[in-house]
């Protein structure tokens, strides 16, 4: 009898004094549940009903397991429209996102609940405009050491084997850039926070954004693709134009006909 009363009191006190976390837990679990519903409809066919991946008959990966990839990976893949994958091809291209920001965060919450993984970066670490001059310079050094080999000096992208490619970095949000570095989508390697610290990542983003905002000092920039485009321009515009002038110089002008 005493035990029963004690339990009731304890339970009552508990529910009286812990309403916040209960609501928070409710909210979180509502998010996770909503994410799970979205997942089952849009993602499970490739990633499996419980997100542990799907293999083909010969044992190759059809859709990878998402356990442990973290909210950051989902926020990147779904937020840049790469997922859901609409065609099979060498890699998932960036396209118009299918899910809204809220749906994306629900999916992220669901996947995060499956296993610990990198989380979506906070606003402070994404504030690249607060990076000072020294930071931008350092970001440039990291960028040229770790990124330009695939993405090119100005982030115009680069070719990889078998039809894959490192995409352009122009027009990519700071958040997505950060998440890509952190989670290493598809063939891109992972740059963990322990080696490239969050501050370093922010510096890299600051450098990339500085390049994007910089005027194209010398004129039309040719897409940042370097000497190949320069050569094309030299031939088509340069030689084409000058030969045009030569034709004009050598042309016989109008003549007055004999009367």
């Amino acid at each position, binding site marked *: 009898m005493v035990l029963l009363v004690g339990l009731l009191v304890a339970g009552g006190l508990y529910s009286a004094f812990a309403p916040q976390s209960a609501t928070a837990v409710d909210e979180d679990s509502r998010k996770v549940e909503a994410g799970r519903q979205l997942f089952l409809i849009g993602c499970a066919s490739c990633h499996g009903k419980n997100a542990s991946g799907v293999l083909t008959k010969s044992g190759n990966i059809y859709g990878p397991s998402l356990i442990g990839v973290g909210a950051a990976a989902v926020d990147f893949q779904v937020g840049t429209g790469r997922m859901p994958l609409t065609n099979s091809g060498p890699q998932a291209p960036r396209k118009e996102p299918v899910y809204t920001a809220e749906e994306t965060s629900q999916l992220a919450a669901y996947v995060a609940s499956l296993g610990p993984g990198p989380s979506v970066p906070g606003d402070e670490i994404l504030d690249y405009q607060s990076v000072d001059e020294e930071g931008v310079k*350092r970001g440039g*050094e*990291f960028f040229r*050491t*770790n990124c330009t*080999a*695939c993405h090119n000096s100005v982030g115009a992208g*680069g070719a*990889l*084997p078998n039809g*894959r490619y*490192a995409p352009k970095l122009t027009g990519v949000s700071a958040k997505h850039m950060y998440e890509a570095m952190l989670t*290493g989508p*598809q*063939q*891109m*390697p*992972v*740059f*963990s926070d*322990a*080696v*490239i*610290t969050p501050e*370093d990542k922010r510096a890299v983003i600051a450098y990339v954004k500085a390049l994007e905002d910089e*005027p*194209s*000092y*010398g*004129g*039309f920039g040719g897409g940042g693709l370097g000497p190949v485009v320069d050569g094309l321009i030299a031939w088509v515009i340069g030689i084409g134009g000058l030969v045009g002038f030569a034709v*004009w*110089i050598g*042309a016989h*002008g*109008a*003549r*007055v*006909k*004999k009367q």
Partner: protein
Amino acid sequence: MNDRHEIERVEPIENPGLPEHLPRPTDVDPKQERRAELQVSGMFGLAGLLALAFCVFYFMIDLDQTFLNWSALNVALGATLGFSLLLIGAGAIQWAKKLMGDQEIIEMRHPAASSTQDREETLEALNAGIDESGFARRPLIRNSLLGAMGLLGLPAVVLLRDLGPLPHSMYETVWKKGMRVVNDVSGTPIKPSDLEVGQLVNAEPGILFETDADGERVLHGTEALQAKAKAAVIVVRMRPDDITPAKGRENWGIDGIVCYSKICTHVGCPISLWEQQTHHLLCPCHQSTFDLGDAGKVIFGPANRPLPQLQLGLDGEGYLIAMDDFQEVVGPSFPELKRGPKS
């Protein structure tokens, strides 16, 4: 058939001769002539004005001003200079085409060879000169002169010896046993727990970030670049199942973490296009592709030798270190590659 040979010496169609010269509208119509004159002088006048505009812009526009996202000064100076020059040229050409005398004239060619007389006189002069010198008649003088001139070539060649040292240092890099593998740019050392599967670290030998008592880098300037050009490495982490180590090198990695030279064995570009899922490493210069899951073997492209591997170990504090220098030569091949201490 004889007839055919006869006729062939005659051209099928005769040369009709220079066509009759027809006048241009500017030659016969004074209004057209005046118009052309105004065109040409107008172009020259505008060119002059643009040259002046160049000077004005040079002093008026600041270096940091932009125009349509381009450097304003560059556009202004370039456009004024360019059009000024172009207009002078176009004006001169228009003048020639429309107003200058345009009668075609004929000039006769002459054979490129000298006349027989010139040749004979030249030979005479040459023979007189050679005969008087005695060059032909005095083999002792001739041969000793030729010998001396020939030998004088040697000092010219010998003087170039100090262009550079003899090539002996290609076999070693700065890597030594116990030297830490550190992240490039930041110089931070690396623990295995810092690395996730699929990670790539562009790394350098620790000595590049060491400073002396004054806080100056131990290696800087040219020496640092020379060291980097051979010692730069990449560290990648793969799933241990994905790795087929080279024979005898099963313990060169730690838990799927392996370290390879970053310098391509083709012509030396630094490689860091790492595809984490295929574990292929692509060099952006000529597309040599190496499989780091298979002892750095070449799987595509013009490189011939596999990428050299660096044996990893852990120091007392648990950071990654090299266990020795590379066992193969780093970078592009050279002729005495197999004749040295390493290959």
